[in-house]
Structure formats: C-alpha cells, structure tokens
C-alpha cells in the first residue's frame, strides 16, 4: 500500500444577512451602500454606556432556515453569549455570539466528492471596519461602525474536506444555498461572505488509486497535531489556489521532518503564495459567558411552524425533480437562477412549457445565453413562452407551405442538388439556410432537412 500526504480541511464561512436592520439595534443594515462612514450607528452598535441589545427576530428565523436547508438539527433552547477580546473595531470589548448552544447543529452538504458534515450554524454580530490610510503625511487608522452589529452567520464544517477542488465546491454550494434562501447577497468582494480554511496534512493510505472521490484514501477521524488557518480570502479561485499552495508548503515542511507551525496565514493573489499573518502561541481565552442582557431564546413549535411555512423545496430536490421530469441537467439549471423566488418562477415556466409540449432543453439553452427577449423573473412566464416561440418558430408553417420555398430553392440551386446526390452531404446546411431565408423564419433543422431530402430524392 502506498502512503501519501492527505490534506484535511475544515471550513469556517461567515455570511452577512441582509435583514433591514442590524442584529441588536434598529440601525439600517446596509454597510456596503452607506454614503459615508459611521452614518448607520446608534448608542447600541457603538457600545455606549447603558445601551442594551435587542435581538433581531428575522435574523434568528433566517439562521434557523439556513440550518434547516443544511439538514441541521435545531436547538429549541438557545442563547447568546459574550465573546471577549479587545480590538478597536469591537466597541463593547466583546462580540455577542453563540457558544455552546448554537441555533443549528449537525447538518450536511453534499459534494461530488462525498458529503461534508456541518458542525454548527450560529448567529453573531459583525464588527466595525478598520481603514488604514495616510492623512496629511501621517499614517492613521480610522474606524467605520456602519458594519458594527450587522447580523453575521457562521457556518462551521467538520474537518471532512479532502482536496482544494472539494473545498471550492463546498463553498460554492454553500453560497448557492444561502442565495437560494434569499437571506444574503454573499458579496465576496465586499466581505459579505468570508471564507476561512483550516488546513493540515497527514499520512494516509491510498485504497483506490483511480477514485475521483474521497473513497480514494483511507480516512480516519484522527486529526494532525497542527493546523494552519487560511483567512481573508475573497474568491473561490483564490481559495483553491491558496489551499494548493498550502498543501505544497506543508508537505515540504513535513518531508523535512518538521511540523508546520500553528498560525493564521493570508493569501497573496499576485504572487500566488500564502504568508504569515498571526502566530497563535496559545489558545485565545474568550471568557465566554451567557449575555445577561439577552434572555435565552425558546423556539416553540408554533414559531418553528411559522419559519417552516415559507420554507422552500431544497435546491437538490428541485434540481433532481427538474432532471427527472424535464431532463434539465443540474449543472445547467444552477446557471439560471439564485433565489428561491427565481426558482419558483422558472418552475412555473418549465411547467407551462412542458404542458404546451415545447422543447425545454432548447429553452434552457436560450435562457442561459440570454437569447429570449424577456425580463427574467419579472415578466410573466407566459410572456417568456411567447418570446421563446418567436425565437424558435416551429409550428406556424405547414409542410405544404414549406414545399413551395423548397421547390424554389432547389430549382435555383441545381449545383447544390447535384453535389448532394454525389455524396457531398455537407451542402445540406447551405440548402436549409437558403430555405429559411426564403421563408423568413426559423425552422427546426431536422424537420427541414427531412423535407428537402424527400424533395431531392423524388
């Protein structure tokens, strides 16, 4: 048996929810479109003396929704805890987060390499933003609290990801699910979705060298005695490259008989390398304790029913249904839409298209290439079908009517007819095109070809 270094990755993904107001106060939650710094602030999100937090109900509901979409169990009794550390962008000296009772736990995300367990999904508040710049020749650090206390969901995976490609797929899938629920824009450029990978390597037996999935390796739950945290990555491509670089770097260290140091590293896209950001000498002590300002949250059956009421069909379920019923490939379907509402719109469209016995695969193709003159998700599905018909008219011309055009084309293009008869079948493309031009219509190629062949061979 061959032994190889196998990478083990656990992901921590932060997603900013797009609720109207912030997590614990009434301030507007729109840090990316604020005209100026510190305009969406109040005593609560600035940590003023005597200010008290009030939890955003919608944010809790959305977190539970996400948990359900990830197949998580839901803690019916949950609470918020204070996580203490000092940083200029953290106005209270603690972040309100969840420690031992997250809203959701024990879920799963399917990838083509195998499933990835979700350890937990919890809700917390975002911090302010530090801006370092030079003003009048002096280096200064400025703080913008527009982002302070924006609802932030953290999704923690089990260390069950075994390649850079699987990590990328996992993260993309996660974004797809979050967008489908329409609870976040997941703008990675601006930090609306933030990726962190915990990466380490260990020796592992190769069981099935030809396998493309995780069954290739003999996997054990035992984790290596170190891990490297790769942080502040704002694209899936950089995530994949960063991990590739880390695998190479860590392997070299391990092969030289040393152990990589436990640290946080960043990724430099220009140089395509990772670099040390912070070395953690010991585990941080956040002195968690339940926030006495926020009573525990009980999610009773009634509330749970309300949350589930407008809970959409799962994305995987929707894709599977479309594939069986309409023969739409999932990898094409996912290019078409993001949110559940959009999915529902398409579902209606496909249903009607199917009822009218129009070809759906062609429609999907045209939708992807934006060739149907319709405002997706805004116009009615009926209008979209009308436009689709205009793009690919098939049925509004009879064979008899066509025959007139065919006869005309064949009589004026005798050479092409002779060529075809002598075996140069490629000339058919020309003939079909000429007939369409005469008819001033788009006609299904196969149908026309059949009619032309029939005429030629008469």
């Amino acid at each position, binding site marked *: 048996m061959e032994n190889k270094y196998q990478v083990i990755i656990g992901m921590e993904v932060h997603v900013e929810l797009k609720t109207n107001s912030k997590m614990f106060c009434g301030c507007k939650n729109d840090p990316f479109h604020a005209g100026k710094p510190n305009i969406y602030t109040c005593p609560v999100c600035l*940590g003023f*003396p*005597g200010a*008290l937090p009030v939890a955003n109900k919608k944010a809790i509901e959305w977190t539970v929704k996400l948990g359900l979409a990830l197949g998580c169990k839901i803690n019916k009794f949950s609470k918020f805890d204070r996580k203490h550390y000092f940083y200029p962008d953290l106005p209270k*000296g*603690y972040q309100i987060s969840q420690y031992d009772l997250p809203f959701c736990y024990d879920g799963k995300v399917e990838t083509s390499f195998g499933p990835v367990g979700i350890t937990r999904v919890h809700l917390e508040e975002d911090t302010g933003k530090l801006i370092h710049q030079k003003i009048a020749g002096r280096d200064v650090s400025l703080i913008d609290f527009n982002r302070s206390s924006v609802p932030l969901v953290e999704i923690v995976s089990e260390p069950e990801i075994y390649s850079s490609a699987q990590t990328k797929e996992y993260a993309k899938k996660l974004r797809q699910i979050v967008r489908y629920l329409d609870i976040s824009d997941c703008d990675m450029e601006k930090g609306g979705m933030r990726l962190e990978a915990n990466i380490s390597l260990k020796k592992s037996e190769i069981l099935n060298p030809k396998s493309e999935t995780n069954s290739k390796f003999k996997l054990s739950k035992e984790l290596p005695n170190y891990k490297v945290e790769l942080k502040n990555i704002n694209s899936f491509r950089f995530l994949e490259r960063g991990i590739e670089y880390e695998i190479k770097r860590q392997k070299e260290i391990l092969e030289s008989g040393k152990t990589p140091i436990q640290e946080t590293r960043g990724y430099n896209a220009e140089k395509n390398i990772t670099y040390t950001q912070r070395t953690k000498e010991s585990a941080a002590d956040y002195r968690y*304790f339940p926030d*006495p*300002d926020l009573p525990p949250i009980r999610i009773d059956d009634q509330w749970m029913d309300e949350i589930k009421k407008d809970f959409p069909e799962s994305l995987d379920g929707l894709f599977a249904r479309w594939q069986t019923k309409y023969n739409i490939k999932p990898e094409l379907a996912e290019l078409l839409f993001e949110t559940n509402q959009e999915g529902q719109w398409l579902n209606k469209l496909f249903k009607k298209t199917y009822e009218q016995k129009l070809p759906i695969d062609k429609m999907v193709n045209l939708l992807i290439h934006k060739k149907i003159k319709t405002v997706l998700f805004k116009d009615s599905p009926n209008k979209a079908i009308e436009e689709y018909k205009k793009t690919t008219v098939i049925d509004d011309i009879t064979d008899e009517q066509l025959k007139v055009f065919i006869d005309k084309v064949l009589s004026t293009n005798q050479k092409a007819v002779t060529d075809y008869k002598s075996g140069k079948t490629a000339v058919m493309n020309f003939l079909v095109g000429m007939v369409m031009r005469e008819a001033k219509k788009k006609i299904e190629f196969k149908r026309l070809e059949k009619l032309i062949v029939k005429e030629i061979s008469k």
Partner: protein
Amino acid sequence: MLIDKSIKELSSLLKKKEISSIDLVRESYSQIEKLDNKLHSFITIRDKKETLKEAEVKDKERKDESSIIYGLPFSIKDAYCTKNFRTTAGNKILDDFYPPYSATVYKKIINSGSILIGKNNMDAWGHGGSTENTDYQPAHNPWDLTRIPGGSSGGPAIAISTRMVPFSIGEDTGGSIRNPSSMCNISGLKVTYGRVSRLGNIAYASSLDSVGPMAKSVEDLSFLLEIISGKDNYDSTSSRKQVENYNQILGEPIKGKIIGLPKEFFRKGLDLKAKGTILKATKIFEKLGAKIIEVNLPHFIYGVSIYYLIVLSETSSNLGRYDSFRYGGERELFSDETKKRIILGTYALSAGYSDKLYKKAQKLRTVLIEEYENALKKCNVLLAPVNPSLPSKIGELINDPLKNILEDLYTGTISLVGAPSLSIPAGFAEGLPVGMQIIGKKFGEAELFQFGYLYQQETDWHKRLPPILGK
C-alpha cells in the same frame, strides 16, 4: 420646610396653587447650598436659572390631571444617562461624558413633569457600599458626618434624608438602594428584576442591576413605582407583567398574613443593637395582626461568595468598552477598587477557572432561587436586616476589604434571586438609623408596600430628620 411633605401633599398644594414649583426648586437649591459642601450628595448640579425657568413653565402649565409628580424637583443617581447632561457613574473616565440619549427611567420621570435638580454621587460604577469609592468627593452620612452614608446610591439617600429633593432614583445591584436607605433613614425599593427598564443605566452587573425609587415614605414610593415600571421594547430583560396601581392597596390590612424571619440572617455577624431594633419591629407587625415564623435559607451563608463571583465576572465584561476609543478618558483612570474588581472577574471567567468559579456560582444561584421560593411558600414576606452593622466610620471599609464585602450579606443574596425588597427605617441604635428589609415574591411589590405602609402608620422613624438640619 416644604420638601418634608409627602408627594401627595405637595401635589395637592401645587394644584391648589398654595405653593409653586418655583418655591420647591428654590428650597432644593437652598438645602443643597447649605449642606452639600459637607455631605457631597451631588456630582453635577443643574444651573439654577435654568431649573427655575422650567419651574415657571410647570407652574403655568399645571392641570388638574397632571401627574402627581408634576413640577416636583428630583435628583437621580449619576448611573443614568441623561441626554446632553454630564453623566459620570461616579468615575473620572466619564468625567466629560454627555450622553447622546436618555435612560428610560429618566424619560418617564421627565415626561411626568418633574424637574431634574442634579445627578447624585455614588461609588464609581456602583463598586462599593459606602460612596467612598467615588472618584469625586466621598459622601458623608447626615446623621454623623464622620460616618459613611452607605452606597452605592449614597448620594440620593443623603439628598432625600436632608430634604434637598422629595424623591430620587437609585440603582440597586446588591444592596445599593437598600443599604444607603437604611443608613440615612429613608425608604427605598429594590424592584423585582425586570420590573423597571434598565436602558440607560450604566451597567455594573447586568443580571442583577435594578432601577428603583428612593423617597421619604412607602406611600411616596408607591406613586413612583407605578410611573417608572413597565415593559420597554429596548430592554429585552424588562417584563411584560402588568403594572399595578400600587397606591390603591395601601391601608389594606395585613391581618393573618405571615412574616418569615430567615434564621441565617439573624446569626453571628449581625450587630446586636441592630438585631434588637428589627426584632422590636416584629412586635409592631404582630400588633397589626401578622404572624411571625422562622424560615430556613441554608445556602444563603454562601450568598456573598456567589454574589461576588457573578457580579465581578459581569462587571469585568461590562467595563471592557471603556477603552477611550469612542468616548471617555484613558483606562489609567480606573480606580484601584475597580481595577481589583475587573481583575477578579476576569479571573473567575478565565478558561480553567470558570468551571470552578463562575459556572459553579451560577448553579448555586439556582439553588438559592429554589430555597427562596420554598421559604415564600410558607409565608407572605420575609423580614431581614439590611446591614450587618451600623454605618462605619469613613475609611474603615476601604481599609478592611473583607468587612466591606460582608456588608452585602443580607442584600446581595436577595439580588441573586431577583426578588423585590423594600428597605424602611426600623429605629435607631447609638443615634444612628437602622433599617430593615421586607422581601417578597417576584413582582410582589404591592404586598411589600402594604406591609411597609401600615408599619409607617404605626411608627414615626421615617419622619425623623438628621441633626444636621437643626430644628
């Protein structure tokens, strides 16, 4: 002296135009000017011209249906945010802090038409029971200037005791209203946790902090509680429980009701003279038809340890925001007492210690709650001393940290339970006031007032004035 009269009398005289708010405000300032340089009840006093102008408007706009506290001067502990008016919480870090918003309790009082005279002295952040730990001038007991007035709401207690204001708003975490009320011979209420909004109260220990009224009598308190209570959508820990008409129940007999004396509160450590005073009070209640029994609260002897582990943990967290980035002075301005409390709290929450300290204390807090609930199944209210000893000499507690901590034995333990407790004058020992607390079921404030009011009909301790006022 007008301010010696009850809120009800003052309101009636004002409405009959026999006196004016201007008279009351003038009297407030006259008392302050005469006495406060010796007592240090106030940290910040409002400009007299401004308040007189306000009084003039109140006198003009007063209607028959105006609130009972309309046009009355009042003061508030400096722990409450008052919009654009200096708020220090007794410490120098916030020496020049002018809050951008107001505490709910302050808004409620102002909306009822009262006139703020000033902000009262306190132990910085509420850290203390003597008002010596203020970063401003240590306050003095009006009954004996060499002694402490109690704390941390020492300022309000002095101001009421010396009739600088007819009422004030204090804050009680582990005795901060009851203790100075007892030492200065006034009436004060620690409310049920959740009864009054905490929004705008500069937090000491959030799970115990409670906002309550301080005044000359139980009758006055009953009016005030109704005004300041109720659900606040901006304080998640405030209760939706219906606010009662507390005044209406006053005068109803307590005949047949049962008073429990917790054995553990009358043992070694309690000053014998204070003990005697309180036992005498039980005779009055018996005369009123109540029955006295003994009850057990066995784990309350650990109350002080549990109390301190929790409040110091919470205060270490609550004070983390004073990093001087957004407002306030540098952290060096924290006093030694506060630094000590932050360090102890940080320790109790630290990994490896929090299981043994903070979490264990939380578990024991649940045990205390059960014991207290069991005790109150056997009786209507509990009667207990407020302080283990008579008011100490100034400086004594600072030099004896253990004694300082034990001062909270009878009050901090009750705070852990979240129960309401009414502190009223019960007599004197060596010329110094001795208070007692009547402790009730959660949200049972009305019943406490019922007991306290009848007691004050039978006694006149609460009417006695400190010698500093002269004759």
